[in-house]
């Protein structure tokens, strides 16, 4: 008899994003089964464990039934972002699931197009990057459930962005990111020829703040 290495059906996926608040969703074939959203931007490491446990419990799904973990790669404030990425990596290895990464801004664009089917103007998605800057990406529309990102993700001052896009009419959206939308983007990506990205590395867009040290003068 042959040994069956994987008996998992591609039914359940777990989506995790901590690029803004903490959002976790359980999806079945692209439909949302359960979702937990915490908007506050500081409590990722407290929330992440019970958030995952809650959606599994609500969906009455064992971790072993999860075939795919979808993680938001950001951009977003680094400290929080990493909590979701670390959790996704270790959940995936613990549950023997595959891990795929999605740009968090794509999930916002997905939510926008779900509510606003009109694609005649490009869509500008921005999120707060702190330090008076925004993370942003520009979308041309949505094809088969996958938002078409034409520029970004990048980080800039809002004034720069206004000037950069001055000749170009576009619509704006500042919807919150949800793990359900993130999971759905991955689901539709899997149906395309390219498939979802195995890259789950963080999208930081900024280097760490640190300057190479020199010995400081102590006395005058």
């Amino acid at each position, binding site marked *: 008899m042959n040994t069956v290495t994987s008996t998992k059906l591609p039914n359940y996926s777990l989506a995790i994003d*901590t690029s803004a608040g903490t959002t976790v969703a359980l999806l079945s074939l692209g439909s949302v089964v359960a979702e937990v959203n915490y908007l506050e931007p500081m*409590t*990722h*490491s*407290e*929330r*992440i*464990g*019970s958030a*995952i*446990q809650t959606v*599994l419990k609500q969906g009455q799904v064992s*971790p072993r039934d*999860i075939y795919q973990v979808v993680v938001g790669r950001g951009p977003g404030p*680094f*400290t929080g972002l*990493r*909590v*979701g*990425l*670390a*959790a*996704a*990596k*270790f*959940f*995936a*290895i*613990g*549950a023997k699931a595959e891990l795929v990464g999605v740009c968090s801004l794509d999930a916002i664009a997905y939510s926008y197009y779900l509510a606003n089917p009109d694609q005649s103007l490009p869509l500008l998605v921005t999120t707060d990057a702190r330090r008076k800057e925004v993370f942003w990406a520009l979308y041309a529309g949505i094809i088969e459930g996958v938002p078409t990102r034409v520029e970004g993700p990048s980080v800039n001052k809002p004034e720069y962005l206004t000037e950069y896009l001055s000749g170009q009419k576009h619509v704006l959206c500042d919807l919150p990111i949800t793990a359900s939308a993130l999971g759905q983007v991955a689901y539709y990506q899997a149906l395309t020829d390219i498939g979802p990205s195995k890259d789950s590395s*963080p999208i*930081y867009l900024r280097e*760490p*703040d*640190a*300057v*190479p*040290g*020199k*010995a*400081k*003068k*102590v*006395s005058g």
Partner: protein
Amino acid sequence: MTYLIREATATDLEPIMAIEVECFVNDAWSKENMQSELAAPHTYYLVAVVEDFVVGYAGSSQLDGATQADIQTIAVKPNQRGSGIGRALMVALTKEAKRRGAKEIFLEVRADNTVAQKLYKIFGFKQIGLRKQYYKPDGVDAFVMKTSLLPEVVAEPLVLGIETSCDETGIGIVRGNTLLANVISSSMELHARFGGVVPEVAARAHLEALLPVLEQALAEANVTLDDLDAIAVTNGPGLAGALMVGVGAAKALAVATGKPIYAVNHLVGHVGADILDQGSLTVPTIALLVSGGHTSLLLVKDLLNDVQLLGETIDDAAGEAFDKVARVLSLPYPGGPEIDKAALGGNPSAIRFPRGLTLPKDMDEHRYDFSFSGLKTAVARHVELAESKGEEFVVADVAASFREAVVDVLVNKAIAACLDHKIHRLLLGGGVIANSRLREVAIAKCAANGIELRIPPLSLCTDNGAMIAILGSQLVQGGYAPSTLDFSADSTLSVTTIQS
């Protein structure tokens, strides 16, 4: 102070009643009630004893074959509180309830007794109901609390420990008290050009290193995640952003594998590391932990219940001082080994650098505290002065004299702590223990004072996951309930919080 927990007998009635009246005043049980409680076949009463005196007691009730137990009472003499006796009594009660087949434990607690409620929460108790004006004659409400988080007592638990509090990503695996794997990925080289640990650089490195380090640890221990009995993780103290990477990963791994999780204290982990070398930890002991992030002097009476902070640095950690002085002397990072090398052949008495917080006026308030900021400045001034005068200075002498000042203070204060507390045992931990002069002086001065010195191997002294795993293993073996999933990463976690 050492205490003993044993089953209560009828002869304990008098001392128990004395504590009952002292602690509960208006709500105290009558002597007759207490007597029948102690004698009843379905109850289990324990006393905590210090030097032959009963200082606390606790009891539970569970009918034969019942899956529910009730905690009837728990009390510790006010002057004996704060040293973990209440917690130890709770551990013993929950263990016994579990042994008798309990799946849930209930209790009632005065609504205004927040200290007791905090203790119960450690054991997973949550409020499930309210009894109005339950406590007569005060008319105080009772909270009804319940836990189903009963410890799984495993004799030789297989525990995985995750450590990300500073710049080492460490994952260790132990079975019982035996080390199976201790894999460390350090981001030290990435910090070299900055002359010190950059928190954001460290946190980024943790995220990248976690998975390969986990896979290597599992391979070295030749176990799978399914084999584990528990997962332990450092939740403080340390760099917040770095801690959060490990905490997020550990929680998700615990949920994915269905394993219990133990959030443990990094500093207490350093103390526990000695178990991996010796098979056990002899207590009480004084512990001196010296690293790039910490300089702490601890009094350890019980690894799982009673660790006290005697003193710590009030400014730079000792390792940080080495790094900063290395920069002053144009030596590379990390400074410790570089200064060790530079000091070769140098005269440690060439320059009398200041010994921080050792003057009589400081010793009242800061007897066991450290300060290295002034020392670092003194070295810089010495070097700058020589340079401004166009004089040559001997790097070996400066390095040796600086190192001597650090070592003097560290060892003298540790020895003083041992002698003051009449504890003739000193344990060293932390990366700075690698410093050859520190070890030499500690060995010599401990021998001169009749103090037994323990220095675990360096691989267990620097930050590592094995020390977190062994602390988790000790908690499992001791019957401690796992942590609940909502604990936080606490960069300033007190050493008295051994498990969160």
